[in-house]
């Protein structure tokens, strides 16, 4: 699974499937379950889909960059730098998930969404960003950097 271009293709496919599951299937149910002051569930759903789309794009692009970086011959002799690159990417993914959530919170700040629902939204963002990045790099990192992701 860590051979190019298989890892690239699987990652994009997985990101898209995950977005369909979270934004289309679960997103609909989740939006319907919310009690909003003025906005409609459809409005929230469309925003949620856009935010999840951005999160998924960030997750996919960062993972693809890691595959590219990890497959460079020069990386083989610079694993300490590679460790830093992976960790910085991972932290950026966490920051991205929080930032996207804040954008959504800012849009619906006056709608009275429960904290538990924001936590669910954060879980969805995380699924597309740092968790997606960790899972894909854990399973499909190029040979040179395959043991760099956390817990590998």
């Amino acid at each position, binding site marked *: 699974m860590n051979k190019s271009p298989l890892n690239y293709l699987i990652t994009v496919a997985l990101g898209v499937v995950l977005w369909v599951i979270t934004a289309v299937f679960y997103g609909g149910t989740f939006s319907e379950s919310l009690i909003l002051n003025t906005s409609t569930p459809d409005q929230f759903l469309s925003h949620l889909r856009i935010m999840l789309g951005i999160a998924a794009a960030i997750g996919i692009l960062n993972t693809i960059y890691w595959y590219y970086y990890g497959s460079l*011959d*020069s*990386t*083989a002799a610079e*694993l300490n730098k590679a*460790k830093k690159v992976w960790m910085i990417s991972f932290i950026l993914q966490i920051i991205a998930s929080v930032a996207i959530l804040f954008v959504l919170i800012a849009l619906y700040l006056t709608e009275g969404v429960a904290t538990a629902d924001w936590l669910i939204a954060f879980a969805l963002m995380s699924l597309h960003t740092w968790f997606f990045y960790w899972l894909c790099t854990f399973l499909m990192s190029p*040979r040179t950097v*395959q*043991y*760099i992701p956390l817990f590998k």
Partner: protein
Amino acid sequence: MPKNYLIGIGGTGARVIEAAVHLCAAGFGPDELSIFLVDPDSGNGNLSRTKSLITNYIKCRKQLQKQAGSSIFNTDIKIPPDEKGLVWGIFPDKGATLANFINFKNMPQNNPELADFASVLFTHDELNTTLDMGFRGHPSIGAVVMADIPYNEYPFKLLFDDLANNKRANDIRVFLVGSVFGGTGAAGFPTLGSKQILKFHKLAKIEDNLSQILLGGALVLPYFSFELNADTSRTEKEMFVTTKDFPIATKAALQYYEEKDLGFDQIYFLGDSLAPKVGKFEFGAMKQLNMPHYIEVASSLAAFDFYEQPDIKGPAPQMLFTACRESEKLRWSDLPVTREALKIREKQMELKSLVTRMTVFCYSFLTYGKRILAANHRELKEAWYVDYFKFNQRDEKDKLKDPRLGQSKEALDDFETFANSFLFWISAMDDNSGMVELIDRKMLVKGELDTGKKVSLIDPEQDNTKTNIGYLLKSEGSNKGRDFNDFIANGLNAVVLDKKITDASSKYLNIFYEAAIKYCKANYNVN
């Protein structure tokens, strides 16, 4: 299967054996080879270097579990059981002189005619100079003392035990190597090569003209020169040989070989008209430690060619071989690898491939390999390392899996010593004259080489030197210049080891060797 013996006589003999051992390590030697040396100068630097190398080789080979098909340390080198028996020192005690050896003091009383005869044959200096440092370019002394070899003592016992247990004609292939122009080699080569000493010794003889021994030899003609030491007061008083004496000594010796009916079946003549300087003149002992030279490689190749010839059923026909370069430059394609014309190119490629591979292997191990071993196991994320070295450092049971500990450490230390010797040896072939175009020393070593000192290797992980590994072959269009990152990414990371290799040090070494094979194939187009 025929048994192969390589006997190095004198300083040149020791240096040829050094080259043979390195080639065996690279995988170019025969399957089995018994080695011993003849030299009265037991402290000779060249001899000590070769002795250490042989014992180091045997240790490395014993400790190494090899990947299937691997050629590294292929030759089973056999030496006498007692390491001291590896060298026939000729004189049992220090301070020996020819006069003592032939009991010259009592000779006028016991045998006055013989005493007069000895006085005619030998000068006062020749009779009374101590021979602890060899025969000092006077083979006539050596010829007397070497005619009486101790058959029942090691190292000759090794050969004569085999003769006692074997009865097939030409099945014991004995190859002598020594210089024609010095002292010990010039004396020992024709003496041991005379019919009655080895070839038709009673244990070796089958019929009148048929022996168990197929006797070959490489007679090394002058191939180096040296500077005279500043200590001229000593050189004026003492007996020694200079480069100027070489041609006369050689001419006289060759005349002798032409006239004398010796026991050799096959002789190879080797020499080099370029005569590079190999250091300053020294009388002997530890100070006589010369730089390796490619003629020693050519001489080893002669021995290997001798061992590789097909079985000879009846009396062996006499054959003489010689080889020369096509130009002043020496390239891989100039090395005399075999007597079979149709196989020359193939064997030259094989030699080039194995030596290049061994060079990459030793270089990568001594630089990057040592750095990884020095690093903290838990922090290492190198894929090749993590794949093959999974263990918990705190668990006592897992200590055997750590290449940094116990027997694995000893084995890797032994290999480190060998790899240093190999890189020193192969780098020294490139004598800075620009004439030898084998491995490029400048790509491997920082500064000048110094005999007896560890080589100072160029770091292959630095930005400005990481492509050096891709340009090791001198003046070769086949260098692709792949850098050290390529060696890690497509060499080390692509290695798949046999599961039967369980020992940690063997795993570690095999990973580097297999990576060297992959890298050399990609970068140098050698298989």
